[in-house]
């Protein structure tokens, strides 16, 4: 009897592809034979658009790349421009940026654990995680007036100062978060169904991960100790003590453990940043028309999804000649096919969720 596997299309409209992604799957009674992601549905031609905008006008557009962690995109792009223009950000500005970036990582990981748990069925965890995330977004809304497309980090520093009352508000919010994270861990960590769905699923080895160019939590889950904040510190990360959570099996469960621990580390960093907030002004003097002499630079940061990089080539005018964004989700998604071969169809949902990809960042 001729053997014919089911060719299945998952997406581009599908409840668990987190955005507009299509997966072409070949399935033989629920076992995945081959998988090919198709991207481009959310391609807005950002890099072309950037070539016709000034550096200051590009920053709000970077909010829309990884729309779950807008501040990290701002930070990545802004650091590259400052390195290109040789701008020096005052220490207070750098510390506020670290606090904002780590709060953004916290919010991004909370959104991730909500989606991941909901994909695997634990629907209440989604609501608990998002309620906690709302508290962090309220801080951004109070700080600069927007929750998602924050545009809260500018070239040369930050737009507004942290007044003492706002610092206390952040600390009060951080005091309330561990309880929610603890509840999520009580619901998931030891749960036999959760372990059944995540242990040994979507495994990738350390060497393969490096070869695939994996970065961020999926890479650290295989035991490889890479964290840009530690390896190539930027924005005075070297002043803070925090440890880089690692795991060893590189499966969905370990990525979950790594991200949950990263949330705690982020809170630790924010508290240190607030405790040792230096005085002085929070932004450097930036000329209204910023012209940068011809040069090129490649700057990366540790975004919540992985290593986010910006290559900028300037040509002396106030507009960049070329901006290339290195997206962690774009590269992490490439290894989905390798990770899901041989797993079951319902695992593909779990593995895709564990990579924490955002289509805005992939399609640019």
């Amino acid at each position, binding site marked *: 009897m001729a053997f014919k596997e089911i060719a299945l299309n998952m997406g581009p409209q599908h409840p668990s592809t987190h955005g507009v992604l299509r997966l072409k799957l070949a399935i033989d009674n629920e076992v995945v034979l081959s998988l090919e992601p198709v991207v481009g549905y959310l391609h807005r031609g950002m890099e072309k658009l950037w070539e016709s905008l000034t550096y200051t006008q590009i920053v709000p557009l970077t909010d829309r790349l990884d729309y779950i962690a807008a501040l990290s995109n701002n930070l990545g792009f802004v650091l590259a421009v400052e390195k290109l223009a*040789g701008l020096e950000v005052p220490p207070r500005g750098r510390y506020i940026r670290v606090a904002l970036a780590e709060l953004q990582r916290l919010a991004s990981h909370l959104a991730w654990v909500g989606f991941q748990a909901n994909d695997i069925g634990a629907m209440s965890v989604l609501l608990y995680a998002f309620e906690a995330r709302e508290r962090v977004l309220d801080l951004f809304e109070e700080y600069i007036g927007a929750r998602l497309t924050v545009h809260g980090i500018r070239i040369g520093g930050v737009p507004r100062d942290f007044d003492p009352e706002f610092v206390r508000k952040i600390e009060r919010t951080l005091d309330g978060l561990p309880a929610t994270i603890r509840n999520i861990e009580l619901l998931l960590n030891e749960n036999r169904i959760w372990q059944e769905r995540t242990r040994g699923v979507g495994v990738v080895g350390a060497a393969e991960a*490096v*070869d*695939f*160019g994996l970065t961020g939590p999926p890479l650290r889950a295989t035991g490889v100790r890479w964290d840009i904040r530690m390896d190539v510190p930027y924005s005075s990360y070297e002043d803070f003590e925090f440890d880089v959570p690692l795991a060893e099996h590189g499966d969905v469960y370990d990525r979950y453990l790594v991200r949950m621990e990263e949330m705690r580390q982020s809170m630790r960093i924010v508290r240190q940043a607030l405790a040792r907030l230096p005085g002085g002004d929070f932004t450097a003097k930036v000329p209204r028309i910023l012209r940068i002499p011809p*040069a090129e630079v490649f700057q990366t940061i540790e975004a919540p999804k992985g290593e986010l990089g910006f290559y900028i*080539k300037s040509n002396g005018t106030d507009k960049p000649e*070329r901006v290339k964004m*290195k997206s962690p989700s774009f590269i992490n998604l490439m290894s989905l096919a390798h990770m899901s071969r041989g797993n079951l169809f319902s695992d593909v949902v779990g593995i895709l969720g564990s990579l924490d990809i955002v289509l805005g960042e992939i399609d640019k």
Partner: protein
Amino acid sequence: MSDRPALLPGFEDILAALEGRFPGAVLAVEAARGECSVRVGPERLADILKFLKAEQGFAALQDMIGLDRGPAPPAGAGRFAVLYQIYRPADRRRLRLSVEADEANPLPSAVATWRSADWAEREIFDMFGLRFAGHPGLRRIYLDEEFDGHPLRKDFPLGGRSGGL
């Protein structure tokens, strides 16, 4: 050999090793803002990449960047260039390899060396029209197969073309 501006520690030995293994391969070196960019010819590119990964420990290809200097490039430089951002975890060194490219003769694909080059090269083909020899499945990644033209070229209108796809 071209001028050798003050280099940061760690790059001399890499350049020396590269020079030793492939005499004359290094066309220009540019070090600024703590980064080092090396221009190499396309001839022995594949071996250079393998050499850098296998013997020099550049385990990860961070990104591949396509460049278009416009239909009338400044003197001495071709129109297209491809840049390889590679990373050495041992001493956390980053190197940028730039290679002149053009539509006529495709560059050797780096997929055999680093698997993360797969989609990066597809994106460069999609956006610039530069082909890569030996790539397992070189086709557009963002735009539709029938779309003709390559948007990131300087002569492609920003507002796009009316009609067509």
